[in-house]
Structures are given as structure tokens and as C-alpha cells.
């Protein structure tokens, strides 16, 4: 039952929300459901912490699940609270009214929580595909040219990718069956987890399966060269949705891939999946890092930086080891906080300046100081400057890389970090400094928006200075699952 | 006793400086078929200047009057490094040649400042030109010292002198010849003599040192002139001490000291003649040929240092 609540609440929410036509009511209800969901997740995490992993037939929760659920909860609260303020700037159209927004967001949340909770590789795949379907309408929410185009690309590219993941799932299922597991249990994660270390899996099939799953879920994670949908979707979606996409959706895809990574590395050794993960991570950070330099649209730049950070996480996961996993997980969390802060800032920028073209924006420091400050803090954090938390996680990943004398990996990593730093510094300076344009509206943002941004910034700083005991416990349990 | 003699030779270098200037002037006049002034003339000039009063430009600050005094004080204290009739000087063993050279630099520093405080065009011009010459002269000067000191295994002037005294005149190495030539050239440049600078001109095109002192008058001018004379004297004494110290009193006896003094005077006279010959036979170099002139010195000094290594083999 505890396992079910986090799924039931948002599902219920999405249905109920459709009923609330009055925007103010919708806002309240949305917040209520948000709180309820947070509570449900909290209870679940607590139970898992109390009495080990919870097992159901199709649902289960262990340390790793809890970590990603907590991540989802954080971002959900931030994004929804921000959205309550954000939607006030938004006119109501046919589908573009707050109730639709909240309903779809709740559906989206449902699918992502489902991904984390699924105990069955098949269910995992279904939920993964469902995230695409649930978020596609959100991406196309504004129904402008860009939004429609981005929505279509997102839908098609991700569906194709996910289809390959399905093939991979089947191949893995085949391998399990060939290894002598029963048809019913051959997709069940717990059974598989037990089996991989005892039974003899055909390595060729397992490799084949992993390759397909990597391409499939990698499309969703946004590994280069499957990343092509990502900048469009992030740039065109409403800001809270962009934040959710890059801050939790990508993490969920990474979670799905991790589940396979665990099984595969137990079945045929960690070397093969590790190599592939590190390779795609490197390609992603190099390409994304370079592309960040030449972006013109603020949100696109942020999207590419998401690609870069997914690459970093992949490197950490691929390297493995205590520090590698710890760094990667920590980085997942830190990146989602920082990235949502940046997206919120971008949302303010669009309202204030009416554009996201960075070369058209100057003097933000004077005309909208708080937004500029938020962007500055977020940027400093995202490029891995101390005392912000991403410095710590990147430090951990780097130390893992060098401790195995993977000098090439570490070197490329450092180089890319410098390039990205250059890109962010260049664009941010040009936006924040100088004389502001004449005739700009005074920024009129609600307290909630600033409050959210302040909280995010504070979290970044706080986790950079010291990691609270409860959180490090969560981390340790998650790492224990990975190792 | 040695200290006393040290004081004596220091005083000698200070007090005899105008005389040297006079002698050189007289010799020059002779070479130019002129009668020439008396060799005591510089003293009377100094007295006359000291009796006048200090003219200070309205724009000038305290630096203007301080500069000549500092210049004089510095050169006088630099005298304490130079052995004349005995191998040890007042600070001969306590200060090395680097300190000596940089003491001279203090003087130049303040002379330039004083010149620029005048507020006229000439001061700055002279200062700027002097900056050029002294900057380029610094390197070869030190390198020549380095070469000699490496050979003598001692960084102090007195130490070098004592080592040289131990040597026979004829087994002096190539290092010494190179170093001597370098120091000779640098000495001419540092003392502001031909062919680098013409002490007897006030032509705007040519003057360096005269340009700097143009604004000074009365006691200030006297001090500067005197300091300049001392500098020439000191440099010549340095050449003698480093490269031809033979005859210096090994132990303190009246005879020995007298002999040493005689020998010294003879050598000094030879050098004076040498300077006079150059001054009256060589034309002054154009401003922008001076670097080449000093470049020769630099090259020689570098050769000297390299030879020290070869000589070891």
C-alpha cells in the first residue's frame, strides 16, 4: 500500500485538476496534491529506511529508488510552487489553461514516479514510454510553431528510441529465459538480480541487450548523438516543465539505464557497460560543451548544459567505485537543483524582456537585479565553482577517474569544464552587464518565484559546504544498491 | 692602523678628485696646442660656487636641493670600497662589488630626479639620455666584475686585489684583459667622458650630464661637479686596484706606504694621459650609436665570463 500511494496521488490529482476550472482554485488544489505527493514519497522513503527494500509484484522500492524519489519530490515542489506564480503571466487558451497544465503535470509526475517504483523491466519500459507521452503535450503546450515542431520531434524521436529499448528488453528477457528462468519471473528485477550472479547468461545476448537499451534509454537521457530532441523540447516547453524535463525526466531515464547497468555488470562484468557509459559520457560532454559556446537562446544553452551534465553523471556511473557512484548520484541531485534554478531565472527573463535571445538582452544587473543574481548563482554552481555543491560532486567523479589512472578521461573532463565555464561566463556577462534597454517593464514577479529561487540557491550553497546526515544516509543506501 | 690608512686613502680619493680633473683638462689643452688653465683651477671653481647662494626654480620641491647632497654623500660613501695604497679599504671586506655598483646607482637615481624637478626641457632630456646610458652600462659593468671575482674566488674588491697581488703580472689571464677593456669603456660612459658624453659642451644635441646639471647653481652645482670628479677618480682607482695593484703596501711601514703612493700616482697619471688622449682624439658618438658602443662592452664582458669557465679546464 505504501508503494501505491505515490502513484495514486498524482493520478488522482490529474483527474481532479481537470475539474477545477477556476484558476485560483486550481492553484490551491495543485499545491495540495503536491504536498500530498511529497508526504507519500516521504513516508515511503522512511519505511524503506526503517525496514529495508519494499517488494511488491510489479512495484518495489530500495535505496536507489528512494534517492531518485527524493530528487523528484524536491524538484516537484520547487517547480509547482514556481508554476503557481508563473501561470499568472499566462493567458488561458483552449488547452492552455492552468487546469490542463496541472493535470498534465500530475500525469507526468505519475509516470516518472512509476519509472522509479517499477519492479519489472517490462513495466519499467511501459512507464518510460508513458513519460514521453505524458510530457509531449506539455512540451507543445503553448501551441506555437516552435512548440508544435518541438513536440513532434520529441514524440517521434523518443518513441523510436524507446522502441529500441523495448527490443533490448526483449533480448534481455530472451537471455534470462535461455538461462533457465521461468517466463513469468524473467522480467522481475528481484529475480533477475538474484539470477544474474548465479545462473549463466549468454554474454552475447546480454551485450546485445545492453547496446539496445543504451541507445533506447540513452535517447531519453540525451546522450550525443541521440540528444537532438532535447534542446528543442527544453527551449519550447513552459519554464516549469523545462525545469522538470531536465531536472527529473533525464534522471529517471538514467535510473532506468542504471537498473540494466547493475544487472549487466553482474552478469558479464562491469567492464563492458562501464566502457560504453564512459564513452557516451565523454562524447556528450565534449559536443555539448562546445555547443554551449555558440548558443543564442538562453534556454537552449541550458538544455545543452543538461546534456553535458548527463554526460558527467554517465562518466561517474561508468567509472563505478565508491567515489564514482557517490559523485554521480550527488551530481544528479545537485544538477537538478541548479538547473531548475537556472530555468526559473530564464522564465523570469522571458517575462521581463519578452525574449530569450541572449544577444538582445543587456543590463539585466540594473533592470532585474534579483533575476540576474539568481542566474549568476545558478551559473556559478553549474560550472562547478566552489562553494557550490556541484564542485563537490565533480571533484568526487574526477578523483575516481584519476584514482584509476584514467588520465585521458580526467583530462578531457577538465578541458570541457573550462570550455563550458567560458561559454557561461561569456553569455552571462553580456546579459547582466552594461546599460539596460530603455522602456522595459519593471519586473513584477510574485514573492513565490523569488522565494523558490532563493531556496534553490540556498540548497546549492548548503550542500556545497556540508551534506546533511540524513541525505548522506540516503546516498549511502543508494550507493549500496549500485555496488 | 689599517682603518686609519683606510680613512686616509678615502680622504685622498675625495680631495684629490678635482686635482685629477684639472690635470686631465691641462693635458687635453696641451694635446690641443693650448696653454690651458692651471691644474688647481677646479678647486677655485668649487670655492667660488660654494660662496654663491642656491638658486631654486619656483616649481621645484625639496627634491631639487636634496638631490645634489645625496649624490655627493653617496659617492663619498662609495669611496670607502676602493683600496689605494693598501689592499684593504674601509668596507673592503664587508661590502661586495654589487653593493658598490648599486650605491653608484642611488646617486644616478637622485641626480635624474633633481634634473627633472627643474621644470625645464633640458633636465628631462638629460635625465632620459642618462637613463639610457646607465641602463646599458649596468650589465657589462657587473659582468666584468663577475668575471674577475670568479677568477679571484672572492666577491669583495679587496679580496680580488689581494688575490691579484699574489699573481705575477705576466700570468694574467685573458679574462683580465677582456674585463679591463670592458671596465675601461664602462668607466668612460659612467663618468660621462668622451666618446659617450662631452663634459665641455652645452649643445642641446649632445649634452647628457650637462643637461641634467643645467638648472643647478651655487653649492648644489659645486657638490655635483665635485661628486662627478670623485666618480672619475674612483673609477680610475678601481681600474688600477683590480688590474694593476702591484706596489700596494703589503705590510704597514712608512716606506712601503710611500712606495705604494708613488706607484699609484704614476699609474693614475698614465690613465689620465690615456683619458686625455681619447678625449682630444675621438669625436663624440651620436646619441643612438652609444648603445652599440656599450654593446661592444657587453659582448666583451660576456666573453670574459665564458673564459672563466674555459680557464678552469
Amino acid at each position: 500500500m505504501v508503494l501505491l500511494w505515490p502513484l495514486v496521488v498524482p493520478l488522482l490529482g490529474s483527474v481532479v485538476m481537470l475539474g477545477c476550472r477556476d484558476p485560483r482554485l486550481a492553484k490551491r488544489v495543485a499545491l495540495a496534491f503536491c504536498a500530498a505527493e511529497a508526504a507519500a514519497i516521504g513516508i515511503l522513503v522512511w519505511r524503506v529506511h526503517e525496514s529495508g527494500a519494499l517488494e511488491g509484484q510489479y512495484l518495489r522500492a530500495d535505496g536507489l529508488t528512494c534517492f531518485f524519489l527524493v530528487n523528484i519530490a524536491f524538484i516537484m515542489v520547487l517547480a509547482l510552487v514556481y508554476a503557481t506564480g508563473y501561470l499568472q503571466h499566462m493567458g488561458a487558451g483552449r488547452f492552455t489553461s492552468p487546469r490542463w497544465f496541472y493535470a498534465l503535470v500530475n500525469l507526468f509526475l505519475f509516470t516518472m514516479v512509476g519509472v522509479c517504483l517499477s519492479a519489472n523491466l517490462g513495466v519499467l519500459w511501459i512507464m518510460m514510454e508513458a513519460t514521453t507521452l505524458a510530457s509531449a503535450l506539455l512540451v507543445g503546450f503553448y501551441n506555437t510553431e516552435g512548440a508544435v515542431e518541438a513536440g513532434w520531434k520529441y514524440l517521434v524521436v523518443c518513441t523510436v528510441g524507446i522502441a529500441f529499448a523495448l527490443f533490448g528488453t526483449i533480448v534481455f528477457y530472451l537471455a534470462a529465459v535461455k538461462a533457465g528462468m521461468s517466463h513469468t519471473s524473467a522480467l522481475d528485477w528481484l529475480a533477475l538480480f538474484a539470477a544474474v550472479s548465479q545462473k549463466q547468461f549468454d554474454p552475447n545476448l546480454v551485450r546485445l541487450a545492453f547496446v539496445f537499451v543504451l541507445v533506447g534509454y540513452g535517447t531519453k537521457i540525451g546522450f550525443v548523438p541521440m540528444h537532438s530532441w532535447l534542446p528543442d523540447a527544453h527551449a519550447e516547453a513552459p519554464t516549469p516543465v523545462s525545469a522538470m524535463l531536465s531536472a527529473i525526466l533525464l534522471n529517471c531515464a538514467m535510473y532506468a539505464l542504471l537498473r540494466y547497468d547493475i544487472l549487466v555488470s553482474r552478469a558479464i562484468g562491469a567492464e563492458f557497460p562501464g566502457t560504453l557509459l564512459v564513452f557516451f559520457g565523454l562524447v556528450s560532454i565534449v559536443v555539448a560543451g562546445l555547443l554551449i559556446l555558440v548558443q543564442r537562446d538562453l534556454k537552449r544553452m541550458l538544455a545543452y548544459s543538461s546534456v553535458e551534465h548527463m554526460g558527467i553523471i554517465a562518466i561517474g556511473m561508468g567509472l563505478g567505485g565508491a567515489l564514482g557512484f557517490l559523485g554521480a548520484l550527488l551530481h544528479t541531485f545537485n544538477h537538478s537543483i541548479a538547473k531548475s534554478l537556472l530555468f526559473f531565472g530564464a522564465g523570469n527573463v522571458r517575462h521581463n524582456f519578452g525574449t530569450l535571445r541572449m544577444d538582445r538582452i543587456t543590463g539585466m544587473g540594473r533592470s532585474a537585479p534579483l533575476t540576474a543574481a539568481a542566474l549568476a548563482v545558478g551559473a556559478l554552481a553549474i560550472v562547478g565553482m566552489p562553494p557550490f555543491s556541484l564542485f563537490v560532486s565533480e571533484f568526487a567523479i574526477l578523483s575516481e577517474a584519476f584514482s584509476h589512472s584514467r588520465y585521458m578521461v580526467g583530462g578531457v573532463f577538465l578541458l570541457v569544464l573550462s570550455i563550458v565555464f567560458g561559454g557561461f561566463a561569456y553569455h552571462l556577462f553580456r546579459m547582466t552587464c552594461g546599460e539596460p534597454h530603455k522602456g522595459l517593464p519593471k519586473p513584477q514577479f510574485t514573492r513565490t518565484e523569488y522565494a523558490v529561487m532563493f531556496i534553490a540557491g540556498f540548497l546549492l550553497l548548503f550542500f556545497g559546504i556540508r551534506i546533511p546526515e540524513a541525505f548522506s544516509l540516503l546516498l549511502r543506501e543508494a550507493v549500496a544498491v549500485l555496488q | 692602523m689599517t682603518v686609519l690608512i683606510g680613512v686616509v686613502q678615502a680622504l685622498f680619493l675625495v680631495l684629490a678628485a678635482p686635482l685629477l680633473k684639472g690635470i686631465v683638462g691641462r693635458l687635453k689643452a696641451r694635446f690641443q696646442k693650448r696653454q690651458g688653465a692651471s691644474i688647481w683651477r677646479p678647486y677655485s671653481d668649487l670655492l667660488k660656487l660654494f660662496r654663491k647662494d642656491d638658486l631654486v626654480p619656483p616649481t621645484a620641491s625639496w627634491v631639487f636641493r636634496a638631490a645634489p647632497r645625496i649624490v655627493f654623500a653617496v659617492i663619498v660613501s662609495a669611496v670607502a670600497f676602493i683600496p689605494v695604497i693598501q689592499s684593504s679599504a674601509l668596507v673592503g671586506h664587508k661590502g661586495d662589488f654589487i653593493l658598490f655598483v648599486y650605491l653608484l646607482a642611488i646617486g644616478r637615481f637622485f641626480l635624474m630626479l633633481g634634473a627633472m624637478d627643474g621644470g625645464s626641457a633640458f633636465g628631462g632630456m638629460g635625465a632620459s639620455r642618462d637613463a639610457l646610458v646607465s641602463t646599458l652600462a649596468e650589465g657589462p659593468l657587473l659582468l666584468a666584475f663577475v668575471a674577475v671575482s670568479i677568477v679571484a674566488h672572492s666577491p669583495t674588491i679587496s679580496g680580488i686585489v689581494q688575490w691579484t697581488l699574489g699573481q705575477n703580472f705576466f700570468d694574467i689571464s685573458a679574462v683580465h684583459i677582456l674585463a679591463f677593456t670592458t671596465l675601461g669603456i664602462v668607466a668612460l660612459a659612467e663618468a660621462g667622458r668622451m666618446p659617450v658624453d662631452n663634459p665641455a659642451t652645452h649643445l642641446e644635441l649632445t649634452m647628457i650630464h650637462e643637461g641634467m646639471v643645467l638648472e643647478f647653481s651655487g653649492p648644489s652645482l659645486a657638490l655635483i661637479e665635485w661628486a662627478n670628479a670623485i666618480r672619475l677618480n674612483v673609477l680610475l682607482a678601481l681600474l688600477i686596484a683590480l688590474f694593476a695593484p702591484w706596489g700596494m703596501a703589503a705590510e704597514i711601514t712608512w716606506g712601503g706606504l710611500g712606495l705604494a703612493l708613488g706607484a699609484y700616482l704614476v699609474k693614475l697619471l698614465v690613465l689620465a694621459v690615456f683619458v686625455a688622449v681619447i678625449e682630444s682624439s675621438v669625436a663624440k658618438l651620436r646619441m643612438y650609436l652609444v648603445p652599440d658602443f656599450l654593446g661592444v662592452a657587453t659582448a666583451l664582458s660576456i666573453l670574459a665570463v665564458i673564459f672563466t669557465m674555459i680557464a678552469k679546464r
Partner: protein
Amino acid sequence: MTVWQATFWTFLALLGVAVPLTQLGGKSKTVRALSTFLLLLGTLAGLSVASRCLWQGIPVNIELPSVASFPVSLTIDRLSALFFFLICSVSLPVVIFSTSYIAHHYEAGRARWMWALLSLFVLSMAVVVTSSTGFAFLVGWELMTLVSSGLILIEGDAKDRIDNVFIYLLMMHGGAAAVVASFFLYWPSAHGLEFTSIRSASANLSAGVRTAIFLLTFVGFGTKAGIIPFHLWLPRAHPIAPSPVSALMSGVMLKTAVYAFVRFGFDFLGGGPSWWGYLVLTAGAVSGLLGILFALQENDLKRMLAYSSIENVGIIYLGLGTALLFLAHGSPKWAALALVAALLHSLNHAFFKSLLFLGAGAISDGSHRLSQDELGGLQKRMPMTGVAILIGCCSIAGLPLFNGFVGEWLLFRSFLAGPNLASAQAQVVLPLLVGVLALIGGLSLACFVKAYGVVFLGRPRTEQAENAREVSWSMRGALIALAAICLGVGLFPAVLLAPVSHLANRLVGGFPPTEEMQFFAVMPWMGAVILVIGSLTLLASHRKRVTATWGCGLPSLTSRMQYTATTFSKPLRMVFARVYKADRKIEILPEDQPYSPESVSYRSVRTTSFERAFYRPAVERVVGLAHWLRLMQTGNIQVYLLYIFLTLVALLVFLRFQR
């Protein structure tokens, strides 16, 4: 917890927490006055603990809560103590100077940030030099860059300023990347980044790794230290900072790089093959010569000072290189001498360079001008400032009796020790470096004669200079204090020699030869003699009369007839024309009548050849590649799908070769 740990904690707490909070939080004047006082108090605390560790050599160690299994601890051993001492003793006068400087130049809001960041800046530098784990070091290292650039941005956000800050940040980050790598190269053998484990691991590293670490530190810390060719940011960033900040950046921040380089090169690696020494020597010689040559041509006071910082860092590197060379040839006592020279010069440069930068601040405060050609005759208008700056100029020109000479003298002596070495090229190279150092000295003398003479002597060139006013007492106090330090150290260097030679002993295992030190005994006597004779000559000149300067018969001279800074350095500019590669621009207005011009303006533009040869092409390459990648993102969904399929195919092929 001992009393000294408590003192150190006080320093950290006051500068890190109390001052920023009181500044940013406190609205009332009294609160902010209090926080300034707290800043002074904290600096004093730091100074006390630093001097204690420096002179008694007893390390102080404190542990901070570790971050995600990365320990954070600060340890003040002798090496750290020296630089911690440097930081505090320079920041003290800087803070005093700032009290009125900030009040004059910024309105309340900016002043708050100014103070907060200033205190954080000092703190971060202290963390860098005292941290004893790699994590803490890197945090401090990055913070130092960030805070300093923040301090630069407080001054304003004009386009060119932003570009300069950007270049600063970018190069710093590149350097930091190298530093990070050099630390992490230790990880496989040290299993962590605690300095103790690093030190013990260094012994059994492979030669290749040692070389890699050395080169990385050379580049990484060289970028921070501003040695050529990594100096691009320095003349851009230092001049545009507020004067107290430039004083800290030039005087102190560069030294943190020197500290780190010594920490790695000597403490961790303990020297290496002789080519390390030659590399560092070359860098030092090039930086010294080019730095001072460029400084000579700069008319903007602060830019000139920035370039001269490059020169002085070059001198310091000459010392370090010599030490490495001696170490490589196994004569630790001479290495110790060279090291002492380098460390002392770092200390002295901190003093006189901060004095001069503060002086520049005072000049701009008194006359609102910073270009030498717009100043002149300030000595009569700002007498105290003038004297202080004069002392600063004497020190930086390396004149005896002033502290600039101490380090250079020791350096000369260590060069002279070259012939004691076995290797032939060392026997020649080191003595020849005497010539190089002499040339550097001569040039810097010319440079600062020009600076002081043009700015403070002669006639004022503009009416701003005409109406210049002496600055407030706190500024004067700071300047005089620093000047006193310069003179004091110059006359009695023995005070610092003792602890620093102990430090050198710990680093290279040998004391510098004592006979080298005794020369300093003569200094006070020299000073006394010069003083006595100088004052005697004053008696000789009885009457003083003020009369107009002789103007070749002209009725009156104007300030335009004086030599300007540009003309003063003209001869040297012509001699070294090769180096400058200056391209002249002569503009005649109006252009249609070149023979009867109304105005003819002449200027010579310089861009450093490193920039043209290396940096710009590199940046262009990277951006070009990025643009190419941008084209790959065609926007056509079918191409995107194709990418995915091709990736899949490629992976399947890879799979075939896997087995």
C-alpha cells in the same frame, strides 16, 4: 584547543562570517564601523599567529568538518606562515587605507559589498596558503579568483572592463584546471589529497608522473603568478580593480601562486632534473625583461605597476629556478641561498608593490588622474604621499638601503655561486644571469625615475594636477606605514633572514652559507654615513633664493615644454624597438590639408606577440569547431533519426569486434 588555534579560528570567523554579515546586514553606520574594526581585529589575529609560527616554527593545525568524505584542514607550517604573514601584514595597511578610500569612492550600497568581498578575498588567500588538503586548497584557489573578479566588477560594468574580467576569469579557470590535474595525479599513489600523504607519496612516483606534475604546476601556478607567456590577464585585470584591491592582487595574490609553486616544487617533489631549473630560469628571465620593458612604456600608472609585477615575479622565478638548479646538482646550501632570495623578494615585493598601488590610489584620489602625462608637480601638493611613494620607487628600483635590494642582492650572490657547480653550462649560465638581472635592475630604475619624476616633480601638466590635494590621514598613515616597513627591512634585513633561512633549511635540507648573510651588517652604517655627509653638505649651502627657471630667453616656460613620460622613455623605446613591435599611428586632422594641419596626434599601439601567435588562433579553432557542430544539428527530424540508427549500427559493429 590551544590559544593559537583559537586565534586562528578568530581570524577565520571574523573575516569569513562576522565582517560580511555585519556589512551586508547592518544598515546603521555604527554597525559598519564596527565591522571595519572587526576586520582589523581579525587581520591582527592572523598576523600574530602567523608571526609566531614563522619565528618559532611551531605549526598550528585546525580541522574543519569534511565535505562528502573530503577532509578539510588548515595547517600553518613555516612555509605557510611566511605567506600568511605576508597576507596579513599587507592587508592591514590596505584595510586602513580603504576606510577612507571606499568612503570617498562608493555610495553606501557598493561600499558594503566592497568591504564584504574585501574581507572574503583576504580570507580566501589565507585559506590557499594555509590549507593542508587538496580539497581545501582548490576551494580557496577558486574562491580567490571569483571574489577578486567580483571586486573588479564592483567598480563598474563597461564593455571593455567586462571583456578584461572575462579574460581574467577564463585564464584563471584554465590555470585552475591544470592545478586540479596536478593534484589528482597524486591520487593513485597517495589515495587522497592530504598534504602529508602527498608528501610521502612523492618519493616513489615514476619519473613521467613527476614531470607531468611539475609541468602542470608550472603552467597552472604560472598563470596565476602572471609569468610570460601566461601573463595576458595580468595587465588587463590589475589596473581596472579599485586601488586597494589591485594592491592586494598584485602584492599578495600573485604570491599565493609562488607559495603553491614552492610547495609543489620543493616541499612535495623536492626538486628534480636540472632542466626543470633551466625552464624556470628561462621563464623568470623572459618575464623579468619583457615585464619591465613593457612597464617602461606604460604611461598609465596602474598598468605600469601591473607590468612591473610581472617583472618582479620574473625575478622571484629566477631565484626559484636557481634553487632548483643547485638542488639538481646536489648543493643544498646554495639552493637554500637562492630560495631565501626568492622568498624574501616575494615578501619585499608585496610591501613595496602594495605601497605603490595604494599610492596610485592616493594620486587618483587627490588629482582624479592616473596618466603620468596628465600629472606633475604633485610633490609640493601632496608632500607626505610623495615621500612615501619616493621610498616605494627606491625600493622597487632595487636601490641599497631599501628592501627591494635585499632579495636581489642575495640572488646575485647565488648566481655568483654558479662556478662551484660541476656542470659546465651551469658554470656559465648562472654568472651570465647576473648581467640579465643587472639589465632588469637598470631598466626598472629608469622606469621608476620616470614615474616619480614625471608625476611628482616639475610643473603640473593639467589643472587637475595643479589643484591636487593631499589625501586623508588614514590613507597617508597606510602609505607611511608601508614606506617605513620598506626602509626598515632594507636597513635591518637580518630580522627576516633568520626565520626564512630556517624555512629554506626545512625545504631543501641545508642552511644558506652564513658568510653570505654577514654582508647585510654594513647596511645601517652605509645609511648612517650617507645621512651624516648629506646633512653636513646642507651646512655648506647657506642661502637659498627662488628664481625663475632659465628658459633660453623665453619669457616663461610652460608645462608643455617639459619632457613627458613618453619622450622620457623614447631612447630606450628606440633601442628595444624589436621587442615592442609597436606600430605607429600618426593622425593629421583635418585629413584633406596635411600641410596645414590643425592637430597632429601620434600614438603607438602594441599587442603582445603571444596573443597574436597563440591565444587568438586557439580560441578561433575552438569556436570554429563549435560552429561546425552547430551545423550538424540541422533541424531535420529525419536526419536526427538517421543519427540514432547509425549510432545503433556502429555499436552493433563494435559488438561484432568485441568477441
